[in-house]
């Protein structure tokens, strides 16, 4: 099985670039340039230096002893929460800002759900002195207030999206509209492995540093560069793509993709795309998405702003369709409880998105000898209000 993108931008039947003509020149410029730029010595040295000295990579691989004991297996945490700005998102924005500079762009736009990608984008724009506009659903602006404050402090303009469910999908629509209106000097930094080709492949490559580091870290700690399983949450799927990347062809490594079930898969308030979705087009990509019979995109729901998206990236659609990856679904409540468990047992407050990945440990059986890597995609500072309100209402 081949899990690489083909030269038309497809993973099996998923992917492609279903974009209006207004974006053709931009996407074509990116498509024809991204690999050339990424492979250039200049880009590589800048990217690696910033990942090391600015982002703080390599992120540790930490053997969580108390969780391991609790789940009777060996649980390693890939600490993307320790990256500058607190999530994996910055791996990608560092890469894309360098790419944007190489393309001569001077204005940056982005969409954001949880705000982590918005913060990561605002951060690299401040670093490079570029104008930054971040689109964010009006509901997400409320539930991820700390990240909104950070973006403003960093000098970004945060523009609320008031359409649809006022969440990530709608922010993405607004960002695309902005790009259509500003095609020459603007680069759109997409925050996940979604959107038209070459975004899914480009973002996956930038995030692949996660699994690249894992190979040597696992070798040092376990004597094998391969774990038995990798668990990651999937909003669009960028942290999962990065954590899976170097193991896609290693079919003895279980890839476990964790989606948000919201209030429950059958409640009508869910974001479990792999169960509730079907093939279609969203944000320029043919993939799985939640839609009505009439092809209207369904407004998703999750307590977690970063997973509250009606699609998944085309790579993940392909991995799940071909059964290379297993999909697990976690409700709001399960995620909240796991966040508390990890905080209390390991002294790490995970992001609500990441808490879904942890909750999957209750649903999958592992052997005592297994080495399981959980991609700790981000820290939970942005979710403290929710945690306190839902978990410790009397404090």
């Amino acid at each position: 099985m081949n899990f690489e993108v083909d030269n038309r931008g497809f993973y099996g039947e998923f992917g492609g670039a279903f974009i209006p003509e207004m974006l053709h020149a931009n996407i074509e410029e990116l498509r024809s340039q991204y690999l050339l730029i990424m492979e250039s010595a200049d880009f590589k040295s800048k990217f690696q230096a910033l990942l090391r000295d600015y982002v703080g990579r390599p992120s540790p691989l930490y053997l969580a002893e108390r969780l391991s004991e609790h789940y009777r297996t060996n649980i390693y945490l890939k600490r993307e929460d320790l990256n500058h700005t607190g999530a994996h998102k910055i791996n990608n924005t560092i890469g894309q800002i360098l790419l944007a500079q190489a393309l001569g762009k001077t204005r940056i736009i982005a969409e954001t759900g949880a705000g982590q990608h918005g913060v990561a984008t605002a951060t690299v724009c401040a670093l490079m002195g570029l104008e930054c506009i971040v689109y964010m659903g009006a509901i997400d602006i409320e539930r991820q207030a700390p990240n909104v404050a950070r973006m403003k402090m960093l000098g970004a303009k945060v523009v609320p999206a008031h359409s649809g469910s006022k969440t990530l999908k709608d922010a993405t629509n607004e960002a695309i509209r902005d790009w259509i209106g500003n095609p020459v000097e603007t680069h759109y930094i997409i925050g996940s492995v979604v959107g038209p080709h070459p975004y899914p492949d480009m973002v996956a490559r930038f995030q692949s540093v996660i699994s690249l580091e894992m190979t040597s870290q696992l070798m040092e700690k376990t004597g094998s560069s391969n774990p038995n399983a990798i668990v990651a949450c999937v909003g669009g799927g960028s942290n999962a793509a990065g954590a899976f990347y170097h193991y896609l062809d290693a079919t003895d490594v279980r890839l476990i993709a964790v989606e948000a079930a919201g209030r429950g898969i059958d409640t009508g308030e869910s974001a479990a795309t792999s169960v509730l979705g079907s093939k279609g087009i969203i944000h320029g990509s043919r993939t799985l998405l939640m839609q009505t019979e009439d092809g209207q995109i369904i407004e998703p729901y999750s307590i977690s702003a970063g997973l509250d998206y009606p699609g998944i990236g085309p790579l993940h659609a392909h991995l799940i369709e071909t059964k290379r990856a297993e999909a697990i679904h976690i409700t709001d409540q399960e995620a909240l409880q796991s966040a508390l468990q990890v905080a209390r047992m390991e002294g790490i407050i995970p992001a609500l998105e990441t808490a879904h990945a942890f909750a999957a440990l209750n649903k999958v059986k592992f052997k005592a000898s297994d080495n399981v890597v959980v991609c700790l995609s981000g820290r939970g500072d942005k979710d403290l209000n929710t945690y306190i309100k839902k978990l410790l209402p009397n404090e």
Partner: protein
Amino acid sequence: MNRIDALFQQKKKEILSIYFTAGYPKLEDTCTILRTLQAAGADLVEVGMPYSDPMADGPTIQESGSVAIKNGMTVATLFAQIRSCRAEVEMPIIVMGYLNQMMQFGMEAFLRSAKEAGVDGLIVPDLPADVFEQEYRDLFNTYGIHLSFLITPQTSEARIRHIDSISTGFIYVVSDASITGAKAGISEAQIAYFKRIEEMELGKPRLIGFGISNAATFHTACQHSQGAIIGSAFIKSIGADERDLAARITQFMDGIRPPV
């Protein structure tokens, strides 16, 4: 002959095309709008099939689409409505919609239903040329449905020539780098762009759209093309007050092209 081809054979300039969102303001307004537009002198109509996530559209069209979806508009309903009054309307009818809805309906079923309803062509902003050529072109030919591709100020000359070669009916010249409804006047740079396209002497006729909002911009656009398309401005005007819908349409049309 496809009604679109017939129109462009017969009329070479000042072609007025109106875009409206099906199901807006009310679910059952489609035929009223079609009939009134024809009576008021429109040459061509583009019926917008409302979509939840219309990424190429500005706020006016997007909001009208949300209302239409809430009103209950669906693909099947739209075709039924068009069919029900097709006999009374002579103009070519084009449906503009997004690819996802067509995929869910099934592209072949969609084209067949369109044909049966009397639709002459489609505009599908997010259907890329290469996918069209590889996956759908034959089907469009089979059902005799035209497909107009868009070009923009950023479209390269080579690509324009290619789009000219694969478009059927006409080419949709997007007036500016923008989503629908975003601009008001027409700038020098836009005129230079229109001229540049004009001088390419393409094989297909051209209609200019996006940002055409009144008589002035319509006439300017028409100086460099076979005609132009008005969308957001029309939708805004018919949603604007409490008068009879037909009266509002007629008043808007009179403002663009006074009755002779």
